[in-house]
């Protein structure tokens, strides 16, 4: 693809994100720009790089993307607005978020099994606070997958999952647990 085309696409992606002023799903952005997923990813990588050092940042999950005020500039904005960000969260909530962030999209049953306790109340709370989102599970229509939102990444100050603290090490350890043969099927409810 010629370089000017990508440049053009990046401009348009940035303009759509600015105009939306919030989170756009990757699917929506693809259709707005009239391109496929791979070209969009290319444009978003370019956009992320372009925003470096401009006071803005691009936050991206597997399904959504948004413009945000970058870490370097956010203290000034926060101070100016003196916004009360209700940031209280319990240990149970943080554990559920840790599972979804480091292990990847998970079902309620998987989360319950890892924590050894029913988490329906905690998950509902996280959903209503916009920290998790619920999507259908392509592998099983009867259950939902829970995944991190742009708002969650924004709140912990990371632009994507790769920026999570100790990401490589922890995901590798979690994977090691998965690969053991005695893991029960995902719909085993504890």
């Amino acid at each position: 693809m010629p370089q000017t085309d990508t440049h053009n696409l990046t401009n348009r992606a940035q303009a759509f994100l600015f105009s939306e002023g919030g989170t756009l799903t990757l699917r929506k952005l693809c259709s707005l720009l009239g391109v496929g997923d791979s070209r969009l990813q290319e444009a978003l990588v370019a956009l992320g790089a372009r925003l470096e050092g401009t006071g803005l940042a691009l936050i991206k999950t597997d399904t959504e993307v948004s413009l945000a005020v970058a870490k370097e500039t956010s203290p000034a904005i926060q101070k100016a607005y003196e916004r009360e960000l209700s940031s209280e969260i319990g240990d149970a909530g943080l554990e559920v978020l840790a599972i979804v962030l480091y292990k990847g999209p998970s079902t309620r049953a998987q989360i319950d099994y890892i924590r050894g306790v029913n988490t329906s109340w905690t998950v509902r709370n996280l959903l209503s606070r916009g920290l998790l989102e619920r999507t259908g599970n392509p592998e099983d229509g009867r259950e939902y997958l829970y995944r991190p939102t742009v708002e969650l990444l924004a709140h912990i100050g990371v632009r994507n999952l790769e920026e999570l603290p100790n990401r490589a090490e922890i995901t590798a350890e979690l994977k090691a647990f998965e690969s053991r043969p005695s893991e029960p099927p995902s719909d085993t409810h504890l």
Partner: protein
Amino acid sequence: MMTERFSLSTEAYQGPLETLLNMIEERKMSISDISLAEVTDAYLAYVEKLPELPLGETAQFILVASTLLLIKSRALLPTLELSTDERESVEELERRLARYALIRKTAKLLRGQWGIHPLLLAHRAPLRPTVFRPADATLATIAAAAVRLVSILPRPEAMVQAAVAPLLALEDVIQSVRARLVTAIRTSFRELTKSRDKNETIVYFLATLELVRSGSASVTQERLFEDITIELENAVAPRYGI
């Protein structure tokens, strides 16, 4: 009783894995057969004192208790042979504990940067409700309308001319009427103003009134709206002559 049950089902409470992990960590041990055997009694005592939980949750506590009892029995009776199922459930419990410990550690890591340096999202600017939508208005049509508007405005030059249109000075008219009376002794108002326009007629009328007021002339009018006859009051006064 009902309220207790309600509060338990809506709040996150400590499950069996968390209870067990807390007990092992309190003893500063790592997760192993030995540590699990060690905490079995404490765990059983805890389960006995459990408040009323939903049935499913109680079952989880008891399931873990039964696995712990297996571990403890094997520790006490080294000759005890566990079945494959039993061995698997022991391994599974250890594995789950280890993974839960990792998740707990990770959650602490997240706590460390929870809301510390958030990336702020845009507040979505609400769209203002549009009362009037200028559908076909472009910059060009607006500019054309502005030009049209300017072209129908009164010309500033014309206004200046109108403002300075020469009018008869009252003083001069008084002089000329007086001169006329001196030579003609009498005249009529219609005669005086027959070649004058409306504005000038008004000035002549004012001049006549002024002559009457100063006693230089007298006027008579036979009937309303009839012509006015103006006569020199001081016909003998030659100083008003030319």
